[in-house]
């Protein structure tokens, strides 16, 4: 090994090492609610896996078909939604560089269906908006205005599928929106929720199947509460935590 070779090889070693170290250091995520300095809704549910673009085929097949060419990401950028981004090393090497929706708070999917129409690999299949299965939006009942003595309806107005997705349980405690299983998981409601940090969280369909039981149980429990219990809950816990999230952030409707 001569000097030249030695220098080049040490360069190689140091660059790869420094890049991998860098990768470890900067691997943090900034989402919308982080930017506002607030906790996410439903903090005990951690989002597992990635929420794929609309029309994505089932997961192992999607992984096999997608070549990471970036057509969907760039089309989303051209359409000014900027919802899609390529995944990093958060869930390991096997999911590297596939498109997913990172930040529902600021950049939700608008279901324009440009990406499945133009995907050259067939990893995204062109569907009707209603048949998309990206994920499932869950409402944090302790933060939602509709469950705590208010009429808000922002989420149902923002929803591109509207009345199909929302059930309303009107009572003296508010209009109580409930997102049923027709939800496609686009996340527009997350963006338009006026609460600081949003009261809605989107999880993948697979994860929803797992936590479905507890979530529905929670909802039924809430509905079955007596007036006094509900009063204590709303004024004792929920409203203070809503108020602590600060002023209502005014958001323009597109």
């Amino acid at each position: 090994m001569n000097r030249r070779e030695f220098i080049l090889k040490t360069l190689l070693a140091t660059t790869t090492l420094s890049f991998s170290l860098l990768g470890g250091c900067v691997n943090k995520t900034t989402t919308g609610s982080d930017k506002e300095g607030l906790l996410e809704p439903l903090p005990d549910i951690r989002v597992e896996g990635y929420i794929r673009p609309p029309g994505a085929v089932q997961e192992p097949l999607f992984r096999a078909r997608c070549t990471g060419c970036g057509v969907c990401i760039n089309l989303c950028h051209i359409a000014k939604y900027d919802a899609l981004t390529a995944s990093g090393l958060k869930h390991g090497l096997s999911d590297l560089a596939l498109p997913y929706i990172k930040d529902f708070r600021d950049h939700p999917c608008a279901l324009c269906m440009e990406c499945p129409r133009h995907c050259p690999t067939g990893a995204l299949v062109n569907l009707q908006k209603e048949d998309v299965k990206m994920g499932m939006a869950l409402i944090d009942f302790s933060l939602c205005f509709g469950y705590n003595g208010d009429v808000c309806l922002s989420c149902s107005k923002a929803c591109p599928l509207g009345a199909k997705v929302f059930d309303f349980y009107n009572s003296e405690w508010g209009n109580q929106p409930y997102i049923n299983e027709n939800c496609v998981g686009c996340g527009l409601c997350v963006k338009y929720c006026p609460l600081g940090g949003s009261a809605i969280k989107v999880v993948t369909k697979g994860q929803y199947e797992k936590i479905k039981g507890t979530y529905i149980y929670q909802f039924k429990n809430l509905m079955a509460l007596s007036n006094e219990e509900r009063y204590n809950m709303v004024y004792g816990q929920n409203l203070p935590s809503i108020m602590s999230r600060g002023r209502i952030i005014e958001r323009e409707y597109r």
Partner: protein
Amino acid sequence: MLVFLLFFILQLAKINIVAGSLTGSVAFSYIRFLDPFAYLESLLASRDLVAHALWSVMLVVMLYLILGRAFCGWLCPMDYAFGLMNSIRSSFKSRFKNNVEGTVPETHKKGIYQWLSYKKTGYLLALLFLLTSAMLGVPFFTNYMSHLTNLYRGITAGYFALSSLPVDIDLIVYSLSALTLLIVLESLYPRLWCRGLCPVGRTYGLFNKLSLLRLTSKKDTCIHCEACDKECYMGVDVSRHTEQAAIRDTNCILCGRCIEACAQKGKTLKLTFRR
């Protein structure tokens, strides 16, 4: 090549001419393209035929049945980057002064370089990538190692990071390090990647055997100055092929350097369409 890179960069400024990368792209939000090797990998990984993907790859196949391996010489960003590297290096190093760009130094003529730059090694590597894709169910080369995906991915992600759009920073780091590895390989063994190893180039090289556009030579006008051999950085012995009517070496990237270098300007070597 720079013009094409510009097209791909215009998409970041929300101008819809081409979206995507050189692996797969959509032109004018109507015509879809998909790289043949990427398609092969994805086909083997998913083990089912998608009409959608087939159409997009057919278009590229048709294009290169006409143009041969012109992709490498005219579109590939790595070809340009390597060329730039070599011209910078040759302006600094006396060792390369008398050599034209990309010519392999004597020390590399034997041993590992020669072994690696055999076309068979390249095909074997491509096959290995295809097998890995089939086994893992992931388009292995295209997704993890390809310079094409990593470059455009890096550019897009870098732009997103700068304009505070959602992006995973570690992806930029990954893409950059993959590209850096290639650059380091290039500095150790010039043009080894292009000549032998790159599976994308190997696939496009196969089109050279059938393409309509080809490099032709006339035996009687050749003065055997071998200027073409010296100029060719892909290691094609152009002068040795003058016996035949057309040069159908899979390493020929139809860049046209040999034609420019030819002492018999325009008389011997020509790029012509088959009639």
